[in-house]
């Protein structure tokens, strides 16, 4: 499987990259990690005329806590995110997620920004970032703007980036006391997309859930927030009943398509199971357990 011909551009600065993107418009695609784009190109399902490789840009690969946020450079490789001490110590949901994205070799090239900007509902970061109430930084020649993750995913493989804009940073609010998170994913084998997965970030105060956000993977055309499931646990103590209610809600509010990973009925049911397990784990972590 050999990709079609294209012209390769390797800008050295973000400005250069944005200029190229501006000039080439829709004929160009951004090449970040390339782990989704290049296979599509090898099957000639994707045939961009120009590739703008962000690999040569400095300063877009970092993971650091700063001013109440975990800041992740868009070109940060998944493997570096997985290995980052701060992530392992303070962002369990993100650590869970980073460990189950594709396989270790793919994670050595795949980037966090690419995973998000691709806006594939089967990717793992969208749900996780929804649960974290993250925000992304978009840069364009005219300046930069912040997009709330809730507004970022606009359609199947479609995001809120304007033509000419480049995603440069993802920001996750630092966890408050009593916060905990977890990602639970059912996959057919290592490296597969989720049959269904749930990302849960919550906060437990005085034995009750004071804040909760839940994102779902690969059970809707657009990365989905399970607000119904969130409501089912908000203000509650984590009991079997409220877990069951959350699971039920998630099963109902998701909108999966049938494919080799399973029927709609199976995916709905499993989504409930994933949500339940992720909440249990998140709550346990919120309570100090890991």
């Amino acid at each position, binding site marked *: *499987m*050999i990709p*079609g*011909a294209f012209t390769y551009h390797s800008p050295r600065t973000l400005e250069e990259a944005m200029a190229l993107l501006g000039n080439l418009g829709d004929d160009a695609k951004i090449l970040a990690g390339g782990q989704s784009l290049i296979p599509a190109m090898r*099957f*000639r399902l994707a045939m961009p005329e120009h590739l703008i490789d962000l690999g040569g840009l400095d300063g877009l690969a970092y993971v650091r806590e700063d001013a109440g946020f975990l800041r992740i450079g868009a070109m940060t490789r998944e493997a570096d995110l997985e290995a980052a001490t701060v992530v392992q110590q303070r962002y369990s949901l993100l650590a869970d997620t980073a460990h189950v994205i594709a*396989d270790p070799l793919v994670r050595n090239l795949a980037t966090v920004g690419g995973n998000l900007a691709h806006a594939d509902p089967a990717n793992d970061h969208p749900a996780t970032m929804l649960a974290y109430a993250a925000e992304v930084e978009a840069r364009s020649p005219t300046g930069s703007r912040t997009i709330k993750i809730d507004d970022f995913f606009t359609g199947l493989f479609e995001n809120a980036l304007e033509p000419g804009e480049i995603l440069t940073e993802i920001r996750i609010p630092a966890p408050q006391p009593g916060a905990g998170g977890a990602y639970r994913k*059912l996959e*057919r*084998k*290592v*490296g*597969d997309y989720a*049959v269904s997965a749930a990302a849960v970030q919550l906060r437990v105060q005085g034995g009750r859930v004071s804040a909760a956000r839940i994102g779902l993977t690969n059970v809707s055309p657009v990365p989905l927030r399970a607000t119904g499931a969130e409501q089912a646990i908000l203000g509650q103590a984590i009991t079997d009943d409220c877990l069951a209610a959350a699971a039920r809600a998630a099963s109902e509010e998701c909108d999966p398509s049938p494919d*080799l990973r*399973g*029927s709609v009925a*199976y995916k709905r*049911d*499993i989504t409930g*199971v994933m949500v339940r*397990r992720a909440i249990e784990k998140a709550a346990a972590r919120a309570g100090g357990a890991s």
Partner: protein
Amino acid sequence: MTHLDDRFEHHSDKPDGVSAEVATTDEVRIRTPSKICGMGHRMKRKEDPRFIQGQGRYVDDVVLPGMLYLDIVRSPYAHAKIKSIDASEALATPGVVAVITGKDLEAAGGLHWMPTLMSDTQMVLPTEKVVYYAQEVAAVVATSRYAAADGIEKVFVDYEPLDPVVDPFEAMKDETIVRDDKEKKTNHIWHWEAGDKTATDQVFGDAAQVVRQKMYIPRIHVASIETCGMVAHMDKVTGKLLVYMTSQAPHAHRTVFALVSGLPEQKIQVISPDIGGGFGGKVPVYPGYVCTIVASIVTCKPIKWIEDRSENLQADSFARDYHIDAEMALDAGGKITGLRVETLSDCGAADAAANPSKFPAGMYSICTGSYDIQAAHVAVDGVYTTKPPGGVAYRCSFRVTEAVHMIERMASIAAHERGEDPADFRLRNFIRSDQFPYRSPTGWQYDSGNYKAALQKAMDMIGYHELRREQAEKRAKVELMGIGISSFTEVVGAGPSKDYDILGIKMFDSAEIRIHPTGKAIARFGTKSQGQGHETTYAQILAEELGLPAEDIQVEEGDTDTAPYGLGTYASRSTPTAGAAGAMAARKIKAKAKKIAAHLLEVGEDDLEWNVDRFQVKGAPDKSKTIQDIAFAAYTNHPQGMEAGLEAVDYYDPPNLTFPFGSYIAVVDIDAGTGEVKVRRFVAIDDCGNIINPMIVEGQIHGGLTQGLAPALFEEIVYDENGQNLTGTLADYLVPTAVESPKWETGHTVTPSPHHPLGAKGVGESPTVGAPPAIANAVVDALWHLGVRHLDIPITPEKVWAALRGARA
């Protein structure tokens, strides 16, 4: 209709005199010191240094000057008429040299059709219509891989879609005919039976209990990590066709190419270099090979064709695809008295299975397995559908996996229905060790076995009764845990040539040994290793027989210009056939060596005895000549009137097949929430007779177990209702990784084959045959109390989930 009984009569009075009961031990026999490294030594593989340093040489590594590249245009329809093909844009594409269509091959003398191994016909390139998705439609030849890939995008084919025939049971209604090129307008290909129907119906009439189950053994793909490929070079000066190909049977392929192309056989050299896994997928001749050869004949240039993975998964021969309806008759005491099996074999668009030609359903009639059953009858029908042709092994002897899965599932279902432990049920019904050689009701002559010993050892090793206790406790806590047993019998090592041939070529195999004056040797064989380690095991066999250090013996295979003619490596036949040929050739050499030794020691031959690596004078062991002394003398000081040199050839035609066996026990835990099955433990006890290299045998068993796990839980080629393949990449065709694959626990018993010169049997495929039912039985064992009786493989989480739901409802 064929009766196996007729064909196997000669076994009852076999010249090699099958001994009665063969003793079973746990011991791996070692008779040579480690410097010689004969049988039984865990010798490090001689082939490994090149592989671990990236110096293996596979077909895609071959580069010839002026080489062109071939790529293939494939059909997006499962069934469609070809109205026209427009290659003008392709020919205008930079680098494209030629485009070849079915019409061109037809003009080239009917080369648009080729024979299959089952003497059916298969299109090379179509002229009228396509009959499966991803079928080869045209070939583009270009100056580079990339240009060829550009070219195929520019060949425009106008199709008129026809109704696909996907379901084999629908196909049997003949509403749409797949092969309208044939005279008989039907999709039914063949009907085949074995066993005694009347006697079988009789025992079913008298049965106290009849157990019936339908099951489907899915369509799967070998997915060797190296795909198929070829480099062909027609040298217009010498008129010689040099072919490098991914071939498990280079000699047979050379003969087929000679017959089909009409080139004289001495002008065709097939070289099968290092092969990146075969598992049966590299036995058939694929259209791509023929296109590559034709392209080289046409252009007189070297042509390289290497399949993409998606082509490999979507168009190359599949395995299995058997729809089975089985019935088992039992008496009141729980003794199996009869087995009645009807099966529909979905062959795809051509009968391109790789079975011996008299056996359209391979050795499926071995399906009475390890059990002493009074009467059995098996009937199989083959049918065409608009799916790719095939029916290759996937690491199993001809159709034995299907047979074993059926009988082992039936045994467990019967045990559960009787409310008894599946182990007890098996122990009661096993063929007893004193019954060997055992004649099965479908006519097989089992050479040796001790099924009780193997199962007992597996149960002890895994702590069977302890696990049953744990299961009972778990059940009380509503946790799902299952234990599954499979006590299989394999049948490997075809010939004997009286019954076994492929396209008329008898299934013997061969070895040729040449000992050089300095006591080093080269040995060539008619088989072809694809990872089995022949360069090491064959050397060990010869070391055992001749006393030459295995290190000093160079083993070669795969070049038809140098190796003796053989049928190749598949169906675990290498050790039973070529391995035996090596031993027999070595014994011929030994006979001559004895004469030379007698001459050198000035004694009579009768005064000599063999001792590991030398002939010594009886009673005076200090008077001796080593094999090296003798080799030197063979060229420098041989007796007057004796031919110089020390070499021999043997074409070994086995008197019978070998019947390796084993008992496997799987322990699974099931996630009741998701339906996921986790194999917690898996113990495999195998008996392949005398062991040549225990390390290599273990490796083969581990690999076979993972390839047994795969179809049990993960792998299946899935088509939609239009015959569209939905599992065309390794992202959807789920080959297990090191994470899904459990840590295998293996052990062995040793029950030598009475008729094999080394007492050895084949082993490479036993685990692929034995593992799936062990896992399936374990899953059903975990769910039986909830009313789940059977699950077809692959047992996906959703299947388990659905079964649990059904149970809850």
